[in-house]
C-alpha cells in the first residue's frame, strides 16, 4: 500500500466515522426520550395491569411499612404459605399494588400475585404472574379472579375452588394478607363483613359434614323464600341454610336425620325462638337418606355375633360427618354402637367409614368401606392395590390400628405417610363418630 493510498483510506474511514457519528448523535435527540419512556413503561406494565386506567407511575414504599408476617393458611400443610413481598404506591393516589407470594405442597413453591387495591379499599384487579396449579384452579372455576374484583377486605362471596382447595386457600390468604398490609398501616379502611358472610364462615366448624379442614364444601342450593343461600352436603350428612328473618340473618343446620339447629350471627343457639325457620329449612331439605338396611347388612358382615333383631336406628342430634348411627346388642349381651360416616377425600370424592364403638367408648372395629387414594382419574379402592404405603396387607393392619382407640387416644399416629389426605379423612370421620357417641351417651344420662 502506498502512502497516498494509505492516507486516502484513512481519510475515508475518518470521514465515514464522522458522518455516522454525527448522524447517530443527531438521531439520539429523537430516540433517547422514546427509549427512556419504553424502559420505564416496561417496568410499570405489570403494575398498570392491576390498576385503573390513567396510572401515572409507582413508588416502592415497601421499606416504609411494617409488613404482616408470613402465614401458613393450611394447618395440615406446613409448606403452604402466603406472604407480602412488596408494596407499590401509585403516585397520583389511585391506589396500591401489593406483590404477594404463595405456595402449597401441591403447587409450585413460589407463585406471585399482584393485587391492585384502590385508594377506597376495593380490589381493582389481580394478576397471577406465575401459575401452574392456579391454571387448574382457573379451569375448575372459570373467572375465579373475577370473583375478587371490586371486593373490599371482607371479600364477601369469594369462595374457594372445590378440588383445588389447598391452592385456592393459599391464594385467598395471600389476597387477605395484601389487605391486612394496607389496613394495618392505616392506608385504607377495612371492609365490613356482611351477616351472611359471617354465618357462612361458621358452617365448616358447626357442621363438619359440610366442612373439610375449615373449608366449606357442599353443593349450592338456590335462594328460595327466606333462604338466602344454602349448601347441601356432598356426603349425605345434611345441609346448611342462611335464612333471613326481618332484618336479621340466621344459620340453620340440618343433619341426615332431619334434625335442625338455628344459630345467630353471634354463634348462639336460637333454635327454640325460630321454629318457623326450622320448618322452612326442613321443607327444603325434604328427607335424609335411609341407611338402616345398609347398616344392618354391614353389621352382620363385620360383627359375627349380632343378636337378631337388636339393631335400632338412633336419631342424630349432632351436625357432622356421621350420616347414620345405630345401637345393637351382641349375643353375649353387650350393647354396641355403629356410626356410618362419609368423609371427603381427594377432589371431593366420598369415602365410607363404619365405626363400631362399645359402651365404654373404645373402638371395636373401624371398617373402611372404600378407601380412595390417588391423583387423577382413578380413584380405586386400595384393598388390592399397592398405592403409597398401603398395600392390602398393611391396609388390614391400618384398620386394626383403630381397635381399642378411644377419643383420648385418637392422634396423628393413625395417619399414613403417602396417603395423608385419605388417612386424615378417616381420622376426622372417627373423631366425628366419637362426638356423636358422646352426644348419644349424654342424652341417655
Amino acid at each position, binding site marked *: *500500500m502506498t502512502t497516498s*493510498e494509505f492516507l*486516502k*483510506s484513512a481519510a*475515508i*474511514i475518518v470521514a*465515514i*466515522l464522522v*458522518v*455516522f457519528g454525527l*448522524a*447517530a448523535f443527531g*438521531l*439520539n435527540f*429523537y*430516540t433517547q426520550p*422514546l*427509549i427512556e419512556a*419504553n*424502559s420505564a413503561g*416496561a417496568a410499570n406494565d405489570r403494575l398498570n395491569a392491576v390498576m385503573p386506567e390513567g396510572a401515572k407511575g409507582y413508588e416502592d414504599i415497601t421499606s416504609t411499612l411494617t409488613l404482616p408476617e408470613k402465614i401458613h393458611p393450611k394447618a395440615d400443610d406446613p409448606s403452604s404459605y402466603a406472604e407480602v413481598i412488596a408494596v407499590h404506591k401509585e403516585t397520583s393516589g389511585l391506589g396500591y399494588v401489593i406483590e404477594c407470594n404463595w405456595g402449597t405442597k401441591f403447587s409450585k413453591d413460589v407463585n406471585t400475585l399482584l393485587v391492585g387495591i384502590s385508594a377506597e379499599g376495593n380490589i381493582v384487579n389481580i394478576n397471577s404472574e406465575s401459575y401452574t396449579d392456579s391454571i387448574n384452579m382457573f379451569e375448575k372455576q372459570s373467572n375465579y379472579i373475577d370473583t375478587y374484583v371490586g371486593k373490599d377486605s371482607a371479600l364477601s362471596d369469594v369462595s374457594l375452588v372445590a378440588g383445588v382447595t389447598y391452592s385456592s386457600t393459599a391464594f385467598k390468604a395471600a389476597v387477605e394478607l395484601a389487605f391486612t398490609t394496607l389496613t394495618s398501616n392505616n392506608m385504607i379502611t377495612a371492609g365490613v363483613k356482611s351477616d351472611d358472610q359471617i354465618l357462612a364462615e361458621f358452617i365448616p366448624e358447626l357442621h363438619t359434614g359440610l366442612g373439610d379442614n375449615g373449608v366449606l364444601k357442599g353443593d349450592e342450593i338456590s335462594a328460595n323464600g327466606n333462604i338466602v343461600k344454602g349448601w347441601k352436603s356432598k356426603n349425605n350428612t345434611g345441609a346448611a341454610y342462611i335464612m333471613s328473618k326481618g332484618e336479621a340473618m340466621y344459620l340453620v343446620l340440618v343433619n341426615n336425620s332431619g334434625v335442625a339447629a338455628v344459630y345467630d350471627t353471634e354463634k348462639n343457639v336460637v333454635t327454640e325462638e325460630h321454629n318457623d325457620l326450622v320448618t322452612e329449612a326442613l321443607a327444603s331439605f325434604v328427607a335424609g337418606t335411609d341407611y338402616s338396611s345398609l347398616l344392618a347388612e354391614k353389621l352382620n358382615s363385620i360383627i359375627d355375633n349380632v343378636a337378631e333383631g337388636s339393631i335400632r336406628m338412633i336419631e342424630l342430634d349432632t351436625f357432622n360427618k356421621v350420616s347414620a348411627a345405630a345401637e345393637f346388642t351382641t349375643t353375649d349381651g353387650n350393647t354396641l354402637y355403629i356410626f356410618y360416616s362419609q368423609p371427603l377425600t381427594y377432589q371431593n370424592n366420598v369415602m365410607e367409614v363404619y365405626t363400631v364403638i362399645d359402651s365404654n367408648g373404645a373402638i371395636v372395629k373401624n371398617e373402611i368401606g372404600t378407601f380412595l387414594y390417588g391423583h387423577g382419574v382413578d380413584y380405586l379402592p386400595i384393598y388390592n392395590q399397592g398405592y403409597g404405603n398401603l398395600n392390602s396387607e398393611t391396609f388390614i393392619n391400618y384398620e386394626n390400628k383403630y381397635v381399642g382407640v378411644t377419643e383420648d387416644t385418637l392422634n396423628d399416629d393413625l395417619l399414613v405417610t403417602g396417603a395423608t389426605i385419605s388417612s386424615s379423612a378417616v381420622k376426622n370421620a372417627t373423631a366425628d363418630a366419637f362426638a356423636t357417641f358422646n352426644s348419644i351417651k349424654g342424652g341417655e344420662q
Partner: protein
Amino acid sequence: MSNKIYMLRKTPSPLLVLAAGFVMASSSDVRAALAMGIAVIVTLLLSSIVISALHNIIPTNARLPIYVLIITGFVTLIDMLMQAWCPVVVEMLGVHLACLSVSAVIFRDADEVAGCHGEFESIAVSLVTGGFLTAIMLVCALIREFFGNASIWGINVGFMSNYKISALAGAFGGYLVLALVLAGIRKLGAYINSRKENA
C-alpha cells in the same frame, strides 16, 4: 441477476451458510423474524447504494474496514430507531441486531456486488437477497413459534398450549427447523426444475 435467482433453486447456497447465525437467532418469534428481515433489507439496500456510489474512490486494499464501517454505521442508526419504535423486538434479538454489522452476508454482498457493479444492479441484488432471507426467517419463525411456543405474533393459540414442543423454541429448534425448511425448498426447486424440463 439470473445468477441470484438461480441461487434460490439451488439453496442451500453459500449465502445461507453465512446467514445461518442470525436466521436461526431471530426465527423463534414471527415479530423478531420480521424485524430482523426489515433490518437486513434496509441495511443491505442503504449500504449497497453508498458503497456502489463510492466504489471508484475506495482503495482496494482498504475495502474491508471501509465496507464494514459503512454497514456498521447504518446498523447503528437502524438499531437506535428500532429501540425507539419496537423495544420488545430489540430485546428478543439482543446482540444479534448489532452483530448484523459484521455479518458476512452483508459484507459479501457489498464486496462482490456493490463494490464492482452499478447502483441499480446492487439495489436489485440486495432486495432479492434480503427478501429471500426474510422469507426463510418468516417461514422458520411461523413453524417455531406455532409449534414451539403455541403462539403467533406473540398471541397465544389456545388449543396448541397443551401440545407445544418447547424444544423447537430453543437453540435446537433453530437448527432442526432451518434444516427441514431448506430441504423442503430444495425439494420444491427440484420439482419445479423437472416440471420445466418436461414441459
